[in-house]
């Protein structure tokens, strides 16, 4: 059933996730349980509210928010939502939209860099390996100094395999990544 009152953003979210944000009555339980809320510029219940509003201002605020990248995807909000909604999925949808539209805020450069580095490694090798991932991440994020002391200790414990494992059928990986690519973005 179409609900004419829903905003375009809300409609996008509904199609992507099945969540009808109109059902949210703003109790705040998602915010209350969110382990990452204190690092969020827009807390989960506000995210739901802004999707309900869904006008340009709300969309701009949401898609360039740090919060959607700060979400750890722990699903505590979804687990406890008294309306059986799925705020985590809503945030997933917003995050993808934010990335597609190039609205990721500068503050989240590191998070984005990590995700992109991760996928780059997987695209090339089919599997993630710690050394290429860390190298690529550090290069693209500029975060060069952190954790330098950890690497040797990981090495000692056999947790930094020097020879990365790779998928044999690399053509298949290439095909999958190509098919999932939207524009120049994954």
């Amino acid at each position, binding site marked *: 059933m179409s609900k004419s009152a829903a905003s375009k953003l809300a409609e996008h979210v509904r199609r992507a996730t099945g969540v009808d944000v109109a059902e949210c*009555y*703003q*109790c*705040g*339980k*998602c*915010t*209350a*349980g*969110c382990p990452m*809320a*204190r690092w969020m510029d*827009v*807390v989960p*219940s*506000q995210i739901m509210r802004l999707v309900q509003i869904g006008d340009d201002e709300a969309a701009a605020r949401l898609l360039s928010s740090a919060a959607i990248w700060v979400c750890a995807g722990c699903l*505590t909000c979804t687990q*406890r*939502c*008294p*309306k*059986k909604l799925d705020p985590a999925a809503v945030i997933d949808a917003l995050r993808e939209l934010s990335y597609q539209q190039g609205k990721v805020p500068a503050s989240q450069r590191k998070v984005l860099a990590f995700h992109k580095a991760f996928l780059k490694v997987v695209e090339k090798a089919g599997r993630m390996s710690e050394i290429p991932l860390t190298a690529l991440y550090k290069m693209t994020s500029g975060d060069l100094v952190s954790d330098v002391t950890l690497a040797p200790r990981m090495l000692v414990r056999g947790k930094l395999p020097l020879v990365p494992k790779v998928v044999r059928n690399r053509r298949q990986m290439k095909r999958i990544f190509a098919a999932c690519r939207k524009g120049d973005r994954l």
Partner: protein
Amino acid sequence: MARIGVFICHCGENIARTVDCAAVAAAAAKMPGVVHSADYKYMCSDPGQQMIRQAIAEKKLTGAVVGACSPRMHEPTFRRAAAEAGLNPYLLEMANLREHCSWVHEDRAAATAKAIDLVRVMVEKVKRNRSLYPIRVPIEPTALVVGGGIAGIQAALDIAGGGKKVILVERGPSIGGHMARLSETFPTLDCSQCILTPRMVEAASHPNITLMTYSEVEAVEGFVGNFQVTIRRKAKYVDWSKCTGCGDCWAKCPARKIPSEFDARLGARTAIYRPFPQAVPNKPVIDREHCIMLTKGKCGACAKACQRGAVNFKDQDELVKVKVGAVVLATGFDLWDHSAYGEYGAGKFADVIDGFQFERLASASGPTGGEIRRPSDGQVPRTVVFIQCCGSRDEKVGKAYCSKICCMYTAKHGMLYKHKVHDGRAIVFYMDIRAAGKGYEEFIRRAVEADGVEYVRGRVSRIYRRTDGKLIVRGADTLAGRAVTVEADMVVLADAVVPRSGGEKLAQLFGVGYDTDGFYSEAHPKLRPVETAAAGVFLAGACQSPKDIPDSVAQASAAAAKVLGLFARPELEREPVVARVNENTCVHCRACIQACPYGAVEDHEIRDRKGHLVRTVARVNEGLCQGCGTCVAICRSGCIDLEGFTDEQVFSEIATLE
């Protein structure tokens, strides 16, 4: 020969705009059996009704069809007019030319053709109508009130005050209900017991009221005006005719650690007990599940202590049959069990309590003598968190509804706490404040402004108990847009109001409907809020929906007024739309008996003059039959018919449409 009159209403322009009323009247005039046909601007007006009356008298009509609005609108009006002119009202039928025709169609020709069809159908039907007469049933002018809380007490007192007899049945050992357990009441903060106990005593001593405590309804037969109700008087093991209520027995009872229901498990009681000192009747019963004598066969300390020899371990349940004409259900509510909330500790934290427990802590007659001390260690909590909507408005636990009373009692709790612990913090987590009662909003503001109760708008996601005993409450402040963590010493959950356990079974006994939450259904949400679908059964209090004391009392008085209204006449008139069995052709396959939603079809034995059984057939009890016609359609040999909607009538209606 049928002499039918047809009256076509224009309803101003409402019908006439799309339907050619004169053409309809002209067409009707040619229908077989029609001897009079007219159209008029407003048939329901006085002159319009006069036209009908006049035609009935002058043309000696044997039936009339009014083509006008929906019969749901004016059928009573026109039938009354027919009766005034000496025509049996059930010989008048209406054709719905407005709601079902002129208002929904645009094409004048098609609408007029349809209007003629609709009139023709009704003309053919009315030719086969029979004069019907209201069914009269004598009324037993005694009422049964089920539930001895404030609603039941009020209903009983009002009915008794109206001069009619009342039987007041209560499941527990005392009347008083939840109200007896409350400390103070909002919005006036007057002492609950102080205003209630005089009412309890009055109910017990009223000459028109028979009190049956420790009793439950077991079975119900009959129908409005004539219910036969079987009541189980549970064994009390104490002969109350001998008992003086002196208390020697419970003083000697060795089973002393039974959690007190009255004190919401915060206090203890004995196995022979009265639930609270002001109980009415003020006499004890023995709880057979916990009595050492009754479970293990030895003890008898109470019997030895009783100087009047009132203790009787051989007492048995007793079934009592009473005849009543009306019933008021006032079975009240319970609090939802929050142990289903794993995120709030699944009921395992002693200091996470419910509203009743807080009432008992705050009550001067409670286990702490009115001091707020937390259950785990008896310490005075310095920070108390109150959480509203616990279970209510939570579809995850299947409760979409608002429990209505929690906003107010939580404010009261916050206030009472602040009055008793001046330097303590009372923090209320709420979603919305619903304070739409007289003096209610002012009360909430008083809690915030005068007493310093802190209100935080947001739900709580989780409560856990740190090793130091602090309860960590993780909530949200949605107005500030942030998560909030409170280190609390005690948490009070405003658990959802749910119907009393066993309520569904009771509803089924009386044929009363209930919603998915188990609350009893009223006959109409707006216009018949105290009646039920079962004639003669009325509702009072929280069994219908969450209610506070003023609402419960108001509804109880309304139910009493309904009962007194019913009892004001010696007999009852019912619509004669009932089923009848042709006993000559009935073969007693019993399909109708099994299908009837009201148990109105019964086995009937036909005997010869000497009393020998000839055969058994089905027979409809007119008092019980509501006229749905389910039995009629189920009868394979067509032995049952429904007055007003007979096979012949329906057959001719269908045939007319060819």
